């Protein structure tokens, strides 16, 4: 009880500090551009890695085995890929146009109105869906790990994040994310080592799986090779279209900060992903031996820890999951607030309201909307996560990767890409769900492919239309 009181007091003090030191939209949305590569790298990684990694990842390993690793196979590439494909161009645009948000970048390149509005809409919808993943992950962890109602843990984590995010925006958000990233990395390594040790070591865990469920060691098992390569590409290129990743480029203090950003991001990312491999392998081996009982794959990691009876490990895991939830939620709340209070009104030709009041209210509203979506959705954490990721990829990948640097891209093409991408993605999602399309048709990639084709075709129909920058 004393620990909870201390935590609540520290949280309130942190939020108050953020409130006192955040007086402008630049401070609220970009932390006044004071962030260096270490803070941006660790914070960005923490924001990108959600409860999906701690809860959904090991559970997905138990379901499809080594084929689940295609989601994280691109991890060594993605830090540098983001900088090569979008980061350098974003930093350049920020320098020239003082962009504060992702829709600002698109508007700086393709003009006001539809480009900004559609980008803001994609960010708001995708961010709420991704926030719902955080709520759901926290609820599962709370139920299985702490033995308390899931909604209570999820509600407490989101409420705390809303408090400091509404008070200080990204000024408090990036500091909290970096601290949470360090906690996540340390906890992930500890949990991976523990899980593998409990299973008798990596070799023994692999041997158990090879004996009892050898199909789980097939990298092309589960959805099959073509679909697995689709998953790999979705998570490689998709990193260039996630607004909570792109947001970190808006926070950088200078261009030189980019140089070591991939090294920090890759190190932090791989440290946290050890939980996917370690708990996935070790937990699956224990489950196959009958030493672990789970009702659904998402329960693998929490059940493994609960089965130890060790309060220390249970608390480490709970803290790590809550840190993962809160770090991702802070960035997403800020993105929704920016889209709703700044970008959508601007796209409609209105001037955003003065002060930070509307942004703070929108931050609160986004938290409530995500909680409602999580409670109403029956999709597992892993699938809900892929849906959010896919929406961002379909909507933003063509415009952010191709549109920002290709001089031939124009406003007409960008608007078409922003509209067609998500439509194709959602249609494909529906068609796969009803069995009309095979599972290998990855909706996010198909949406991005349609958007890219629309971008180049419509840009070539009538180059240099009015509104291009």
């Amino acid at each position, binding site marked *: 009880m004393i620990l909870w009181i201390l935590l609540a007091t520290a949280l309130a003090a942190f939020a108050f500090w953020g409130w006192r030191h955040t007086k402008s939209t630049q401070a609220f949305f970009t932390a006044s551009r004071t962030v260096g590569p270490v803070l941006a790298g660790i914070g960005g990684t923490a924001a990108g890695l959600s409860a999906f990694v701690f809860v959904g990842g090991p559970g997905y390993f138990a379901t499809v085995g080594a084929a689940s690793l295609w989601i994280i196979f691109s991890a060594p590439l993605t830090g540098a890929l983001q900088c090569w494909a979008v980061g350098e161009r974003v930093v350049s645009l920020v320098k020239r146009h003082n962009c504060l948000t992702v829709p600002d970048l698109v508007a700086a390149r393709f003009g006001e109105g539809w480009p900004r509005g559609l980008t803001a809409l994609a960010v708001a919808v995708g961010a709420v869906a991704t926030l719902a993943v955080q709520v759901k992950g926290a609820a599962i962890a709370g139920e299985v790990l702490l033995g308390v109602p899931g909604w209570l843990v999820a509600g407490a984590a989101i409420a705390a994040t809303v408090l400091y995010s509404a008070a200080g925006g990204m000024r408090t958000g990036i500091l909290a994310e970096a601290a949470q990233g360090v906690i996540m990395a340390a906890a992930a390594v500890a949990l991976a080592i523990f899980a593998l040790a409990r299973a008798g070591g990596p070799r023994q865990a692999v041997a158990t799986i090879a004996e009892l469920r050898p199909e789980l060691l097939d990298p*092309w098992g589960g959805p099959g090779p073509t679909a697995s390569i689709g998953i790999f590409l979705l998570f490689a290129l998709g990193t260039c279209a996630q607004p909570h990743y792109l947001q970190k480029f808006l926070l950088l203090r200078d261009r030189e900060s980019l140089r070591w950003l991939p090294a920090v991001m890759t190190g932090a990312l791989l440290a946290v992903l050890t939980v996917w491999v370690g708990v996935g392998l070790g937990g699956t081996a224990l489950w196959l031996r009958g030493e672990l009982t789970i009702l659904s794959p998402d329960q693998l990691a929490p059940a493994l820890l609960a089965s130890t009876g060790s309060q220390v490990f249970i608390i480490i895991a709970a803290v790590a999951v809550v840190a993962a939830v809160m770090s991702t939620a802070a960035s997403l709340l800020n993105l929704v607030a920016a889209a709703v209070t700044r970008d959508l009104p601007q796209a409609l030709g209105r001037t955003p309201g003065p002060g930070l009041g509307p942004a703070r209210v929108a931050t609160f509203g986004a938290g409530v909307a995500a909680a409602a979506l999580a409670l109403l959705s029956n999709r597992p954490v892993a699938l809900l996560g892929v849906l959010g990721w896919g929406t961002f990829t379909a909507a933003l990948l063509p415009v952010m990767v191709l549109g920002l640097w290709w*001089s031939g891209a124009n406003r007409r093409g960008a608007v078409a890409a922003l509209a067609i991408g998500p439509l194709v993605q959602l249609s494909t999602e529906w068609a796969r769900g009803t069995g009309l399309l095979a599972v290998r048709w990855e909706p996010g990639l198909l949406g991005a492919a349609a958007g890219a084709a629309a971008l180049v075709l419509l840009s070539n129909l009538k180059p240099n239309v009015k509104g291009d920058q």
Partner: protein
Amino acid sequence: MRRLVPISVLLLVAGWLTAMALDLPRMAAAVAVSCIGAACVGAVRGRAPDRRLAAALSAILIALLAALLFLLGKEPSGATGLYLQLAVMALLAPIVPIVYALTFPTDRDVR
């Protein structure tokens, strides 16, 4: 470049759709690796005439494609596939960020 980009993009899209429609994993792997390379073209052009990034990136992507094709070519047996997946990740993890840092242009803005 103005003509080359649309043609390249449409070829990649057509290649991906073909690979998915006909369930051709090798073609999907080749297109996937090409897409990753294509996403970096802007950075490579921004560093011209310095060709170090182009060379390093080509080497990384060829290694990646080779690993994917090797995995696609072997019959599933034991844990070889899992170990190869982990080995590729362990190998690329330090190399790629170092390539980025060493080829980062300092003296001018990105074009």
